[in-house]
């Protein structure tokens, strides 16, 4: 018979005791501060939203969302560790506490908001599902896609919308479901399917990766509402507030015309009370969020306002060239709107 040493048994007992003591983590904000870095869940690579450049730096609209949070908490936008996740992994990673926040083009739906123990913070990109087809098919409307085969990214709302749309229009389709954006795009390029479907912004992004981007056209039709935004764990209001107001600060800065270039001058000279509150000169500053007093100044200074971030990553300053559209400010005909900072 094997001999069980006292030490083996005692170590098993210790393990059991430790296990029984596990419980949900303490406040995320405190934990992030203690750790000294923000762990941010992003995509495995979607140009314009979150992808790495040739030097290995993460870039994109979602990445700037992560950087803004780090700027608010630490005063340093670079204190972020990125966790690339595919669509299937993302919620589990957030639920289990592996990441602090998920900024990964995630569609806000009732089910995800209520049944997964998660909360959507806001909408950093208003999107809708679209279709990309090879130009040579000569298709101009999604209604002509009866009997088509679709390439699609697994575990997305796109899979469900597609089924709804075809059922509604009494058409048939087949879907080849790939694990990542990249593989779905590769499948489309090789001709495995007639059409690539995803959120329209992602189609623009994926098109830039095709070997001949202009052999593919993106149809005008939008078949769904896809409000994409950052997600945090449910039941951690302090952290929820930090992420939400970091984002609102960027929208408010856009509205007030405060940019990373002029924020220093504004801080010195501006007499506009709204701007003075925004850059942390008046009001309760960072106190109610448990952040440094210059948190919103750091966000604007190091990352920029929403317009800058948008144009730099997906708009005029990028290869994607997406127009603001729905994502313009409310006063410019869009629906981006943030409550006042006071």
């Amino acid at each position, binding site marked *: 018979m094997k001999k069980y040493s006292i030490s083996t048994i005692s170590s098993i007992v210790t393990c059991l005791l430790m*296990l029984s003591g596990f*419980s*949900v983590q303490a406040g995320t904000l405190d934990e992030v501060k203690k750790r000294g870095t923000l762990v941010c869940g992003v995509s495995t690579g979607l140009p314009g939203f979150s992808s790495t450049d040739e030097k290995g730096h993460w870039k994109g609209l979602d990445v700037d969302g992560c950087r803004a949070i780090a700027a608010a908490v630490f005063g340093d936008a670079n204190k972020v560790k990125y966790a690339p996740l595919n*669509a299937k992994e993302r919620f589990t990673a957030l639920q289990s506490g592996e990441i602090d926040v998920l900024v990964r083009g995630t569609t806000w739906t009732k089910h995800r908001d209520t049944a997964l123990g998660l909360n959507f913070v806001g909408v950093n990109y208003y999107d809708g599902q679209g279709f990309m087809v090879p130009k040579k098919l000569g298709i101009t409307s999604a209604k002509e*896609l009866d009997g088509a085969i679709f390439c699609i990214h697994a575990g997305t709302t796109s899979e469900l919308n597609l089924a709804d749309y075809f059922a509604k229009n009494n058409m048939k389709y087949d*879907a080849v479901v790939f694990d990542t954006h990249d593989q779905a795009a590769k499948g489309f390029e090789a001709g495995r399917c007639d059409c690539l479907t995803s959120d329209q912004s992602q189609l623009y992004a994926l098109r830039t990766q095709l070997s001949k981007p202009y052999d593919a056209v993106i149809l005008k039709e939008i078949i769904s509402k896809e409000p994409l935004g950052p997600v945090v764990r449910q039941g951690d209001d302090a952290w929820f507030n930090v992420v939400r107001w970091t984002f609102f600060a960027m929208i408010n800065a856009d509205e007030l015309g405060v940019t990373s270039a002029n924020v220093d001058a504004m801080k010195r000279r501006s007499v506009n009370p709204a701007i003075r509150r925004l850059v942390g000169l008046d009001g309760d500053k960072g106190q109610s969020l448990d952040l440094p007093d210059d948190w919103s100044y750091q966000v604007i200074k190091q990352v920029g306002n929403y317009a800058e971030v948008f144009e730099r990553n997906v708009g005029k300053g990028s290869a994607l060239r997406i127009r603001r559209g729905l994502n313009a400010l409310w006063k410019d005909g869009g629906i981006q709107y943030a409550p006042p900072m006071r």
Partner: protein
Amino acid sequence: MEGRGHSVCSAYALTVMERSENMMRWLNQGRNRALVFQVALMLGTMLFFFLIGANALSNLEQQGITSGFAFLSQKAGFGIIQTLIDYNESSTYGRTFLVGLLNTILVSALGIIGATVLGFIVGIARISSNWLIAKLAALYIEIFRNLPLLLQVFFWYFAVLRSLPLPRNSLHIGDWIFLNIRGVYMPRPLPDLGFTLLVIGFFTSLVAIGILFFWARKYQEKTGKELPVFPLSLAILVVPIMIIWCTTGGPLHWEYPSLQGLNFKGGMTVIPELAALLLALTVYTASFIAEIVRSGIQSVNHAQTEAARALGLAQRKILRLVVIPQAMRVVIPQMTSQYLNLIKNSSLAAAIGYPDLVAVFAGTSLNQTGQAIEIIAMTMAVYLTLNLTTSWLMNKYNARVLLQEL
């Protein structure tokens, strides 16, 4: 006072020591000690799993995550490209589970058959006396055994299948079979009146062949003469079917695939994802099986072959009647673990979009419902069941071919 107190104390200490000594003596008996530790270990293990379960449940509740199996009866609402049973977008998650399960079983079963056949052929070729055949077999084994399987899956999917043409330029055999990048399209047989008769005829023939084999063996044992079993059974199989076919005027008709709009419609389709995965699993596993078969054959003492030859058996019969049955004893247990590997490896399907259990259920369904623990547990239970069943069947077979020492 002090003295008395002391003596009471020491008397008490003495009894305690005595008792603990008794206890130690009891414990030191091998059987008792084993029992105590077994019980402790079992209780510990049970406690361990209980704590894990309770902890997970309370955490899920605390975080506001839905748990339980109610989702299985909810509408799934997404399409699946290959389904062996009726499925559409309004089916339930329970149904997607079955669809995924059947797709996993399909690719595993076909893979096991393919790998076994290919593995045997290559394994025997490997020890062929023909230099070229032997070296080619060795080359095959060394290449496919030493490349990661995922790489091979990608190779077959992206490199080989992607070189196929688009639907409009399909390669084709007449108007029956079409091959393009979207798959192989074949005519689908549709049963007409009299089809049942054909099925009954087919199975009756099979039974008749079974009886023939049994009887031919008895006859050979009695007289030593061999009957031409193969041509006879072929006749039994073909003649009745032909008669039924002609009298009913063909109880089948075919639905041909045809290009309509963007894609082929009608007929049967083998999707390239299935073909690529099957090819990769077969070719990869066959390279291991070939080595197992080779080692099995070489483990049979050469004197056996010589003795068989001395008895005047033909070369083909030596292999079939003397060498292989004995080699099987070495081969079967190792083969079992290759089969189990193949079943597990089939989960690489997700990488190329083949809708197996992991892709459909532990992938899309998991993401849409968010119930990771339940879904992963069910998926693990499936693989465990599949593999335990396979290994149980193989062990049964192994017991049959085992050396029966009298």
